């Protein structure tokens, strides 16, 4: 019986979420299920962070670590303590240094990764499609052209600069407008694919929950 308790809890929450969302996002059942999930997740995250982050990375080095570990632990400790002051409006300035460190380090890591891992690699990949020596033939070249047109047209679609005209509304040049139209098609296809992916993912999650409830019912009934 104790093994079935998580199953029953999951079943109840699933029913609450499903029925509650059908009646609306702001109804009591849906909010109740949301609060339960948030509360459970918060408690779980606190315990996880305490045992996974604070204890092995802060407490343990300070208590049983070497001098080098202790010294290396002091800067993050000080920054962490200063970050706590952000919750107090009068003392929030003390946490600015910690926030500056976090934002600076995060931005540097994200920008570096985006440039090196996305921009350059994606640009190079698009360029490589036109490398006839790489093989692939015409189809590869068409893929490259298709990707190029789609990329340029999508970028031109978001170009809203136009030349001012007398006695007329400002309009973009005709080539730009034509390319923007093509880019609008690519954007529509992309959004359609994203929507399909989102719908498919949600549908799969719904199917899994309905199968879970159906299996629970079968288990309890039969």
């Amino acid at each position, binding site marked *: 019986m104790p093994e079935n308790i998580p199953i029953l809890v999951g079943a109840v929450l699933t029913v609450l979420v*499903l029925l509650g969302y*059908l*009646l*609306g996002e702001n109804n009591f059942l849906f909010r109740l299920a949301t609060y339960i*999930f948030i509360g459970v*997740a918060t408690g*779980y*995250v606190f315990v*996880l*962070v305490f*045992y*996974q*982050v604070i*204890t*092995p990375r802060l407490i343990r080095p300070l208590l049983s670590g070497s001098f080098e570990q202790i010294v290396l632990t002091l800067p993050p400790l000080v920054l962490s303590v200063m970050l706590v002051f952000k919750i107090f409006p009068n003392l929030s300035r003390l946490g600015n240094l910690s926030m500056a460190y976090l934002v600076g*380090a*995060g931005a540097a*890591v*994200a920008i570096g*990764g*985006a440039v*090196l*891992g*996305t921009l350059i*690699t*994606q640009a*190079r*990949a698009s360029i490589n499609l036109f490398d006839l020596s790489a093989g692939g033939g015409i189809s590869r070249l068409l893929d490259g052209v298709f990707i190029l047109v789609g990329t340029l047209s999508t970028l031109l679609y978001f170009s809203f600069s136009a030349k001012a005209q007398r006695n007329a509304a400002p309009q973009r040049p005709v080539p730009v407008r034509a390319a923007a139209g093509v880019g609008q098609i690519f954007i529509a296809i*992309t959004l359609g*694919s*994203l929507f*399909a*992916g*989102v*719908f*498919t*993912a949600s*549908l*799969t*999650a*719904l*199917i*899994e*929950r*309905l*199968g*879970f409830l*159906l299996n629970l019912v079968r288990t309890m009934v039969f």
Partner: protein
Amino acid sequence: MADILCPMCGKPNPAEAEICWSCQARLKPLQAQQPPDDSVPDWLRDMRAGQEPEEDAPAAEEAAGDADIPDWLARIRQRGQEEGGEPQGQDAESASDMPDWMKDLRAEGQEPAGQSSGDLPAWMKDEAADSSWLNGLREEGPSAPAAPAEGGAENDWLSSLSDWGGDAAPAETPGEPSNAPQAEASQEWGSDLSDWSAAPQQPGQPEAAGSEDWLSALGGGEQEEPPATGAQVFSWDELPEAGHTPGAAMTGQLPDWLGQMANSEAAAGSNPFLGDGEETTPAGEEQQETPAGFGPFSTPPFSDEAPVPELPASDDTPDWLKAFAADLPGGEEPVAGPFPAEDLPEPGEQPQEQPAVMPYENVELPDWLDKAPPAEEKPEQPPALEGGEDLAMAQLPGWLAAMRPVESVVPQNALPAEEDDRVEKSGPLAGLVGALPGESLATRVSKPAAYSARLQVSDRQHQHAALIEEMLGDEARPQAPRGERSHIPERIVRVVIALVLIAALLLPLASNLRSMPLPNLFQPDTVAFQRIVEGLPASAPVLLAVEYEPGLSGEMQLAAAPVVNQLTVRSARLALVSTNPSGPVLAENLLGAAGVRESLLYTNLGFLPGGTAGLQEFASRPRVAMQYGLDGELAWSTEALTGVEEINQFGAVIVLTENAETARAWIEQVQPRLGDVPLLMVVSAQAAPMVQPYIDSGQVQGMVSGMSGGAMYAQITSQGGAWLDYWDAYQFGIFAAIAFILLGGVVQIFSLLFRRPARRKA
């Protein structure tokens, strides 16, 4: 002679000194030494002249003391005293001046009470005589001792007359000067006369048999009303014929005997109320000689309780008066006559004011006081306010005006000339000339300059203001609330779609028909994924990053289960890590759902904090970044991670995520450090389109996306599992979604075709 004290410094000076030896102040005023000034007006000269013969005044008044009282009036007074039971003081000196009938009448009366004038010094007698007429006016009660002066003051007869006419005889207070003005009393003798004539007409008193018609006319022949009690003040206007002087009015109605007496007295120019031998002072002189400060006074009101005076009998008394006296309560003999011929005023002559005598006027003053200038002893008093409109305004003489210190200091042109002539007509300063012109100054204040409060606004500014006002008015104007669209149809549609979709999903799940064909076309990414896993060496360490959220764990487990099963087949050693706090638990759940937890060698590194920075740290130094496992033990010393020092020592890195951003973070931060280690992605269907470019770029070597990708992977690897139970439902759901999308599109097209044109706003 005594020394003179200096009025300035108080030092004594000889009597003959004119200048103080100490302060050089003048001891004797220069005014006394000034020669007669021609600029002195006549009235001032007369006033000075009237003050000179003051030494003779007591003698004259003494002589006129008893003679002023007419006989008939004395009898009336005596009778009043007898009936009131009050002794009336009579001094022997005044009694000697009485007529015979008066003496007889007095002899029948009581002994006089009070002090006799014979016991007083000469100046006191005069004072008593002078003040008797005032004492008569101050009689306050029957019990008060009366000390009338028989000296002949003409007002005694008025007092007696008032006593006779009133019920309560006012007591006389000897020696008490009267504050009542004398002039008014002189003018009201006619009032007393009217009252006297009204007295016989009281009810209960028989009318005199011998009364003449004129008395009837005076009485009005009306006996129905008793005499009024209390104060009775008469004026000339109440006499029978208005506009006539009382003398003229009465002369025509007087009886013969009275008319003869009046005519004889008028020819002699004497006061009709004076005794024989007395001369009447001209009216003008008497008014001028009236001392200042003694204004007109009113006769005290007659009292109904005053005793009726006893009229003495006399041979000269007419018959009608005798009969009247016989009818009186205590009278023995009729009174000879109410109006002696000498007491009647002349026809057409106004009653004259008797000269008032200042109290202590005849007292012998010390020498130094006698030599004082008369002007200082009796300063001028403002004229009487009552009736002051008829009096001529006093004007200062030139020599007196020159002595005014104000004019010597203040320039003549300080104030306009017209303000100097202004006479105050009201208030305590009424009658004064040249008073402070407060009212004039108030009216002289000019009106403040009127500044226009209107703004100087141009037409353009007016237009702008109107525009702003219009805009504000539109904002403030309440607008009709728009009809809120009902949410009921939307909810109904949503519930219907949900119910239809749930029914479409439950039907294949419950029936377990598996009617839908399994996927036979496989995506290249999925195939590449399978080949990479298939190509892993046995017991190769594989880093499995569980980065999905619990909400999509159902999808992710369906997509990742075939991969985990194949890894188990390949006896891979798994290292579980997650940058998501819920990742470690979901990773355990994933292994449990796949049924490989016991058979698979793995180490759960747990939660990797720091996001992208943590990923970079983990990619750089995995042992430092994730030193301990989820169980708290050193992770890198476990069997699963044996021989792994760097991240590129793993056989493959598989990322399970439903978020494209998380996939991109792994690609950007970790993939560059992997080298030849393949990076594989098991992503949700919603993140697959975003990860696809990285597959094309070669950064991600394989990808399994969603349930369909898992089904493909299972098909490739010939695996079964839960996905087979859900495949039909998945396909039904996809078809249902397509049907809803198409149905919605058709409804939208029809709604556009049959949409009513929008009504134009009025």
